[in-house]
Every structure is written in structure tokens, then in C-alpha cells.
């Protein structure tokens, strides 16, 4: 301190003048004002994003919840042996000769007869209008029932069939008498009859599990379309993505973080992994189309190809998350393990990996959640197809069968012309959101379960 004496004189007391602690000086006021402003900015940002989120969820749920409820008609049907089994021998091959057209006529006729017998009638309605209220999905369903159980032939059964999309829309308020006058697909008389049928309990709206289990259906019968194939496809893809990415991602991260020498090559690899995470997903779709379908010859629209493409996309995310988790393990733990004579691999597998596990699992699940909502690459590999057959079980090569995925189904329904698909695409979004919430909750629970302090 000896060199400080000559120069600067010690400042005299009270450079700011005499002041009271009870009064804020100008500088303090400015600082406090800046702090208040900053807090307000932050608060505004959060409020704005919450409001936007709330609006989005509100519209989705407003439009989508009705997709889970569906109008259906129940009435007795006498399965006339003369029509369904003209040869009278109940042979499966003979039964199969009767097409859905035959069943359709039977249903229409029986429904009209039933209404006549019950004395339910609307002036000016034709039999054609009456049978037109039953979904075009019904004949196929009845035929499947009969083929599965030929003993039903000749009996009278209680049959429940979807009402057509327009009748369903009328009960949900989407279709009105005014719109019906302009609509060639539904007549005012049909709606009047629907009112009567509701009174008699023949037509009713109830929870429709078919929305979750049925395969997709065409514009002709939106009421019978469901997410069955999409859910199976998404499920297959997620499981495959997990199988493909977790081992590869974790192995790559461990190698890069713990074993790889730090040189130009590993730097290059690191930069490229980060870059890959930022590549637009549609590019991966083109890659998948070129490599997996055109070059490797895997079947298009299959969940295997979808999973491979999404794995490529998810891998960088998982590697980045895993490396961050491994890096977050304190070096003192590695020192401790090496210090007692553990080998590098023992150190990693006995100590580093268990501690990094919560981070790895969270990163993986969040990566999978992003992958679950991925649409663009799937469009290019043909998963936007119209698939009405369920893929086979996973062990019977179901991953090679054509399938769709939930987000792709949303996209495909949103672009259909029939208004009944509006509620269905919102409903599909709700299902997708449900899966995402489940995955995120799983991530949080796993994190809690594995979290340890050091």
C-alpha cells in the first residue's frame, strides 16, 4: 500500500451530500423504475403466451369434444334367410356371395318397416329418405356380424347403427333446417323424422368408442371414421423409435463425452450433430424416401420406414440431451471412481450413467414427444394414405403394413370436404395432446423417481 500515498487524496466525507435513507435519490429511483418495467415485460410475455395457449385449447376442445359422441339408431332387424342364404345351407362361401348391397337393402327395408309398424311417420318422406338415415357403414358391419356367426340368420336381433353424418350433425347443432334445404345430402323431412326418433329413443347420441378404434373412412361415411389405424401406427413408430434411438444415442453420447479424444474430427462431429437437430423435418422425409423406400426397397406407408425417418430426426435431440446430462455429473464422482481403481468403463456404467439417467430419460421422452407430433416427413413417405385395414400384430410383420400416424390423420381429416370431419380432426388433436401429456408426465415422474443428490 506504500505506493498509494502520493497520488489520490482520500475523498472527503459524504460525496453525495448529506442524505436520508428514507428518501430515494434519483439514481435509485431510476434503477427501481427499470426493474419494475422489466418485471412487467416478463409478466406480459407470460400472460400473452398463456392467453394464446388458452384460446388454442379452448377452440380445440370446443370443436373436438363432440367427435367422441356419435348419433346412432337402434332398431330390430329380422335376418331373412331367403335373402341372406338363398341356398339355405349356411355354407360360408355361399353366405359370402351376398354383398353389402344386399345387406343395405335389407337394413333399409327393415328400418322402414319398423317405423311403419311403430306408427312413426313424417308427411312426404320416401322410403329412400328413411333408409338414407342409416350410415353406409351399417351394411358392412351387419355382414361381418353374420359371417362371423351364421346362426344369427333367421333370427330377429337388436341392431345399432350409426346415423349418417348429417343426422349426427343435426343432433349436435351443426346442421339446421335452413341448411338442410340447401343440402342435397339431407332433406328437411329426414330431420323432422330424426326429431320424432329422438323422442322415441330410437335415435340417441352417446359416447363413441369407435372414434378411437375404427379405421379411417371415406367422405361417404364420416360417422364411422376413427383413429384406430393412426393410433396403432403411432404406437408402432414410437416403440421402434425408442428401440432405434436410445441405445445408439446413449452410446454415441457416452463415447463423445467420456472416451473420444478432443480433436478436429470430434469437434466436427459435434457441430454436425447440433446442425442436424436444426435440419427441417421435411428434409428427413426426402432422405427417407430416397434411402429407405427407393434404395432399400422397404414398403411405403409402413410404420417401419416412418420410425426410421423419425429416428434420424430424434437422434440429434437425444444425443444433445444425453451429453448435457452426462456433462452435468460432477467430475468429482469420476475422480472418486477412478481413485479407487475403477476402469473408465466401470466409472461410466457404475457411476456416471446412473446419475445421468434422469436427464437422459427426460431428454429421450421429450424427443419422442416431438417425434410423435411430427407430420412433414411422414407425408413424403406415404403415411398420409387412406388406410382402412388395421396393421397386423407387431410379431406378424405389422410394422411393414401400411399405417397412418396421429398427426398425419389430423392433417388428412382437416383437408376433407365433409363438415363432419372438422370435429373429427379437432378430436384427433385432443387424442394426440392426450398422448403428449401422458409422455410428459412420464418424463416428470421418471425424473423424480431417479433423481439423486450429490
Amino acid at each position, binding site marked *: 500500500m506504500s505506493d498509494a500515498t502520493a497520488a489520490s487524496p482520500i475523498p472527503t466525507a459524504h460525496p453525495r451530500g448529506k442524505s436520508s435513507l428514507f428518501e430515494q435519490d434519483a439514481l435509485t429511483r431510476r434503477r427501481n423504475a427499470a426493474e419494475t418495467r422489466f418485471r412487467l415485460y416478463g409478466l406480459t410475455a407470460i400472460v400473452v403466451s398463456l392467453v394464446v395457449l388458452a384460446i388454442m385449447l379452448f377452440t380445440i376442445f370446443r370443436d373436438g369434444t363432440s367427435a367422441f359422441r356419435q348419433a346412432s339408431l337402434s332398431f330390430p332387424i329380422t335376418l331373412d334367410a331367403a335373402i341372406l342364404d338363398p341356398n339355405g345351407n349356411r355354407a360360408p362361401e355361399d353366405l359370402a356371395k351376398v354383398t353389402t348391397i344386399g345387406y343395405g337393402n335389407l337394413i333399409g327395408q327393415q328400418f322402414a318397416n319398423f317405423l311403419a309398424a311403430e306408427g312413426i311417420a313424417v308427411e312426404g318422406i320416401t322410403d329412400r329418405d328413411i333408409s338414407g338415415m342409416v350410415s353406409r357403414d351399417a351394411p358392412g358391419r351387419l355382414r361381418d356380424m353374420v359371417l362371423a356367426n351364421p346362426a344369427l340368420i333367421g333370427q330377429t336381433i337388436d341392431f345399432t347403427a350409426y346415423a349418417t353424418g348429417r343426422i349426427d350433425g343435426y343432433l349436435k347443432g351443426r346442421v339446421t333446417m335452413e341448411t338442410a334445404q340447401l343440402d342435397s345430402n339431407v332433406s328437411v323431412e329426414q330431420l323432422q323424422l330424426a326429431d320424432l326418433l329422438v323422442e322415441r329413443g330410437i335415435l340417441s347420441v352417446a359416447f363413441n368408442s369407435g372414434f378411437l378404434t375404427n379405421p379411417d373412412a371415406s367422405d361417404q361415411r364420416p360417422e364411422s371414421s376413427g383413429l384406430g389405424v393412426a393410433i396403432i401406427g403411432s404406437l408402432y413408430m414410437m416403440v421402434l423409435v425408442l428401440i432405434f434411438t436410445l441405445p445408439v444415442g446413449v452410446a454415441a453420447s457416452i463415447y463423445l463425452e467420456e472416451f473420444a479424444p478432443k480433436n478436429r474430427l470430434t469437434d466436427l462431429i459435434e457441430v454436425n450433430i447440433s446442425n442436424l437437430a436444426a435440419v427441417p423435418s421435411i428434409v428427413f422425409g426426402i432422405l427417407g424416401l430416397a434411402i429407405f423406400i427407393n434404395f432399400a426397397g422397404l414398403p411405403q406407408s409402413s410404420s417401419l420406414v416412418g420410425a426410421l425417418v423419425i429416428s434420424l430426426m430424434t437422434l440429434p435431440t437425444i444425443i444433445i440431451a444425453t451429453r448435457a446430462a452426462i456433462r452435468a455429473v460432477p467430475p*468429482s464422482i469420476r*475422480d*472418486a471412481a477412478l*481413485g*479407487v*481403481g475403477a*476402469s473408465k468403463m*466401470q466409472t461410466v456404467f457404475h457411476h456416471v450413467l446412473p446419475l445421468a439417467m434422469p436427464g437422459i430419460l427426460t431428454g429421450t421422452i421429450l424427443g419422442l414427444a416431438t417425434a410423435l407430433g411430427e407430420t412433414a416427413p411422414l407425408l413424403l413417405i406415404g403415411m398420409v394414405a387412406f388406410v382402412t385395414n388395421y396393421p397386423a400384430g407387431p410379431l406378424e410383420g405389422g410394422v411393414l403394413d401400411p399405417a397412418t400416424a396421429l398427426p398425419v390423420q389430423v392433417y388428412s381429416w382437416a383437408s376433407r370436404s365433409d363438415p363432419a370431419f372438422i370435429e373429427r380432426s379437432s378430436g384427433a388433436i385432443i387424442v394426440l395432446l392426450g398422448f403428449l401429456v401422458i409422455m410428459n408426465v412420464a418424463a416428470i415422474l421418471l425424473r423424480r423417481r431417479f433423481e*439423486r443428490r450429490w
Partner: protein
Amino acid sequence: MDDMRLVERTVEQLQSKIEAKGVQVYYGEKHALKDVDVAILDRTVTAFIGPSGCGKSTFLRCLNRMNDTVASARVMGSIRIDGEDIYDARVDPVQLRAKVGMVFQKPNPFPKSIYENVAYGPKIHGLAANKAELDSIVEASLRKAALWNEVKDRLDATGTGLSGGQQQRLCIARAIATSPEVLLMDEPCSALDPIATAQVEELIDELRSQFSVVIVTHSMQQAARVSQKTAFFHLGSLVEYGETGQIFTNPKDPRTEAYITGRIG
């Protein structure tokens, strides 16, 4: 330096355990350790003292090749333990570290149970044939580390839940569980309060009967209290090495004297 024990301090051992000759360490371009020659005796506590950055920890980490984990570190010269060069190509550092245990500056128990902490070393080195043997190793190690009585009823409790001093003794127990021949301690008490420090120091003195202990310390009082031999490092060189009493009362090198009296550091 009026500790009475200094006077009666004698070095009974004459057989050297570790012999270092011409050890040079570079971290990249930086010459961290310059030409260190030292012979560390068996069953003796040797203290390394010196100002921060003088190379004493670097040298300690050479003795069990922990410097191998630093990519930029290069070690030259020879370090022999019982006449075997530990930097020989045939030496597996993993085997070496079982023989040369280490206790670190900050207590770093594994986030596992107390039992697992101590049992880990014997397990990976196959020192116990069965559970009973492992149990006895754990008990013996914890007893030697003067921790047994405090934790015997909660061996399943997590090691990180112990107090700082207990954690450090747990780390010592973990280090001696593999029955090393040399125990390296890198400022083992710097994160501990005076009471825990006293316990660890007492422990070090007891460990001397079985191991050759090398301790790096910033506290000259601690060096004086626990060690028989002291080495003073300065700017990467070994300035003076001798019996602790002699170093503290009658240093030969003016730099040692300056450090001990608080003029450099």
C-alpha cells in the same frame, strides 16, 4: 512452531516406498513440474507444502497416474513404487490405483449407501469372495477410518447425507478398503471445520502404521502436526525435502524459510 511433538518426531523407517527421479510435467505448453527428485518412505506421513500452483498437487496426481485423465498432461522422468516404474507401458493404471489410494480435496462419496461406498472398491477388485468377507472388509475399513461407531446402525443410509467431516472419513474408508500400500491425500481437510480436521488428522497418524501416506496441505500447522517428512514445492520445483522438524525449525533454503514465515505465498 512451538508444537511439542516436533521435538520428539523421529523417522523410524528408512526403506523408501516411492522413488521419483527427474519428474517433469507439462500441461500443454506449461511446464508445471520441473525435475523433481524425491524418495518417499514406507509407513511415514509425508507432507507436500507450498503456495498455490506450485505443483504439489500435480506431483501427487502423478503418483497414481490420475494425470492420465487430463488430456493435455505429459509426464516425464521415472516414478518407481517398490522399484517398479509406474509409467511403464506394461502398467495398467487401474491396477496401480488399487495399490495407491487417493482422497480428494472435496469429500466426494458416491451417491449410494455408506456400505456401497466402501464396498465398491473391494467388489471391483475381487477382494471379497462372499458377502461375509465383504461385510468384514467394510467394517474394518470404517473402523480404521474412525467412522464405524457413527454409522454402524445406518449403513444403508446414503453417503451424501453425512456431515462434511464424516463424508471425508467415509472417503478415507473407501480408499483404504482396497488395502492400498500408499494413500495420497489432496488437501483432505480444506473443506472441513476444525473439529472434523482434528479427527482426520488423528486418523492420518494412525494410518501411518500401515500405509505410506502422502498429504498435500495448505496449512503449515497441519503439515507440522501430522507429518514426519515434509517437501516444500515452489514454482514447480522441489525446493527442500527433509524431516518435518528440520524443515520448520531450521530450513536450509531461504525460500523455504520465507514461505514458512509467511513472506512468500
